[in-house]
């Protein structure tokens, strides 16, 4: 069995190698999924992404801050079924404001420098997802859960 340190490394490697994640929000029981450019902290406790304030996902998160985030390594090939790793995080989303926002933006833009105009726009919000649990799927159907102790 993998040690906790090994699992954490696996998560970290996936989060570093992937640029995009799928974020799930809901409104009145209707789930809604969106693609976002994300970055994760080294301690795996937080995921960050930027969204426009006029978007559905933003308005959904205002009414219900519970979200799920999916990151995976598939490359749209048949081999994905045995090779790809998927990680779903569940947690709470909230908007980060200055002064913390400035520091987090640095981290965010070091991974996504091309999103500078978007991320710095006053019409966009920087969202922090505080992860409660991770669900890791590999070898097609092997699922392990990791819960973060608070």
């Amino acid at each position, binding site marked *: 069995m993998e040690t906790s340190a090994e699992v954490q490394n696996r998560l970290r490697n996936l989060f570093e190698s992937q640029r995009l994640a799928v974020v799930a929000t809901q409104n009145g029981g209707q789930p809604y999924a969106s693609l976002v450019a994300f970055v994760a902290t080294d301690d795996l406790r937080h995921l960050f992404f930027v969204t426009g*304030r*006029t*978007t559905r996902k933003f308005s959904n998160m205002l009414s219900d801050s519970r979200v799920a985030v999916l990151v995976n390594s598939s490359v749209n090939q048949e081999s994905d079924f045995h090779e790809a790793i998927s990680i779903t995080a569940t947690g709470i989303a909230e908007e980060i404001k200055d002064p913390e926002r400035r520091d987090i933006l640095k981290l965010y833009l070091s991974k996504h*420098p091309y999103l500078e105009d*978007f991320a710095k726009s006053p*019409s966009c919000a920087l969202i922090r997802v505080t992860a409660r649990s991770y669900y890791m799927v590999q070898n097609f159907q092997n699922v392990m859960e990791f819960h973060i102790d608070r």
Partner: protein
Amino acid sequence: MTWIISTENIQQEDGQRVGGKGYALALLAKGGFAVPKTLCVTSQTYQEYVRRTGLRERILLELNRKSFKDMRWEEIWDCATRIRNMFLRKPIPADISGQLKQAIHAAFHDKAVVVRSSAPEEHDAVSSFAGLHESYVNIQGTDAILEHISKVWASLWSDAALLYRQEIGLDVTKSAMAVVIQEIIVGDKSGVAFSKNPNDTSQGVIESVYGLNQGLVDGAVEPDRWILDRQKKTIISHTPAERTHWVIAGESGVRLDALPEKLANLPPLNTQEARHVFELALKAENYFKSPQDLEWTIRQKDLVVLQSRPITTLAPQKNGDSRSWYLSLHRSFENLKHLRDKIENELIPAMIAAADKMARRDLSKLSDQDLAAEINHRWEINQKWTNIYWEEFIPYAHGVRLFGQIYNDAMHPEDPYEFIDLLTHTEMASLERNQMLADLANRIGNNPSLAKALHEGQTENLDPLFLEAVNRFVEKFGDLTCAVTGGTQCEQAPDGLYKILLEMAAHLPTEADRQPMKDKEALQQKFLSMFEGEQKKTAVELLDLARSSYQLRDDDNIYLGRIEAQLLAAVREARQRIDARLHGGSNKKIAAELLKVVESLDHRPQFQPPYQQKPENGFVIQARQLIGQPAGPGLAKGPARVIEQTADLAEFKYGEILICDAVDPNMTFVVPLAAGVVERRGGMLIHGAIIAREYGLPCVTGIPDATRLIRNGDEVTVDGYLGIVTIGSAEL
């Protein structure tokens, strides 16, 4: 990785990464030609810079906001301006800039240099980028040289370069740029030489000017021209220029100066020198095994080659070469100064006089025949001024663009359109009109019985003072709800105007609503403090020119509107006569000429029908978030008011979002009521954007099909920071 390489170390395999110009210079040096000391910053340096700073993807994001073929040239210019600013604001990573500085210092110490583009595509010799990318002459100090390397890189993405690449089908994602840094040779006379005349292959051509080559290359100085016989190496003809100016090195950069009188009557080259230059061109042709286009200079007695490239136009071109057209998109400062003089002192006064002359004519006293002739006459006057508008006034808008580039180069602002703040709050005619409207609205706001009478449509016994003010307004600016340029069927009635005035009166601005004036004075001082001596004088002149150009962009339409109003007045008189005699029981016959001329004018611009949602196989399409261009910062939400024809403006309500195809200045009077502006036509310097910026409103332009995809009353959010319009509910 090799960031910078000296010409003597360039090998054959380096051709691609040092670009066409760099490689040709290396070969010339090896072949024993006299060339200036030269370093090449490789295209790998460019690629590493755009990769590490994220600029590579940022540029492509910018270029892919919408399909390139759907972009108006103005939008491409905006795109290029934003990209250029990215280069100016993103420093070269320290490890690379350190190596560059070291090599530059070792080669040139503190000597001034020329920083030139060297496009790798040019190395293939199928396409010539001559003149499309920028070169900077007389740059001193490693920091300044590095900054100019960035500017040369940015010129890869200029509007002209983008259009040209698109036309010859080059993949923009593969574009890269090498840069040549040359010791400056301050020649007494300079020029170009074509070893083979593209128009007659038995001949060669030399062009020459006094001073530096820059004046010849950018067209500011007319050159003397020699045609030579390739076989006999003799001069066939010499066409002297009107020698008035030369370009010389200033403290930094170059400047255009009056040519000293003793040189004005003397050709820059004597016969012997012209033949000497031509022999050099033939030698280069022989060396490269293809006809050459040579840039050269003579310092004292020394003839030096500055660059050499194959003459591409000798090969039959499939599509023709329209580079000159793209280059003509940009006007020089000198050219714009002449244009300004003509517009301000000749065209505008003539335009006002033409409108006044027509206004003085009492139409009711004309016979039917004379009225018909008058309509034709006015139609011609209107056509004439519409043509002048396109030929003279539109190009003058380049004054704003030229200033924008100089401002951004000096200031590196976060907002690439900050420069507009120095141009706004000038005395635009449309602002004067809006002020008059606000005064009328104030009268209604402070007079409940007047407001009541207007509400109830009791317009017979209105306050004479108020009516007089309304008439003054209509006389000056015409009926606001009449279309301009193209419309000939306008029924003039003040009802539309009253509607707008009532709406304005119900929402009179408070002190708190007024735009805080930005500290324009401080910004102006800061901008001018970036220059010294001669350059400062030019900067002051350029700012003045830009203000006039900015103001005219709005005023010209207002003046054109006045001309058209006179045509409309004559047509209206004709229609009233026809109506009166058809329905008024008069026995007097209508002159055939008059009927004919009125019928011939029966055309109006057709508006597109609004977008209809028709379910197809149960599939309904609806726009949610549309991407255009950010044209005025801010975020606002409100019900949409879609303007399909000018008369719709009368329905405009306070707090609505103005959605239109193209705002012309004659429509902008509703802007003070609007919460935001969305326009199909794209660009930062179009009227809708200019007026939105004046009033501090969020504005998005360049949304294709805006008036079709958005319906009246739709809830719309305008994100003027990112250039996005969201339709449907959104949290703010």
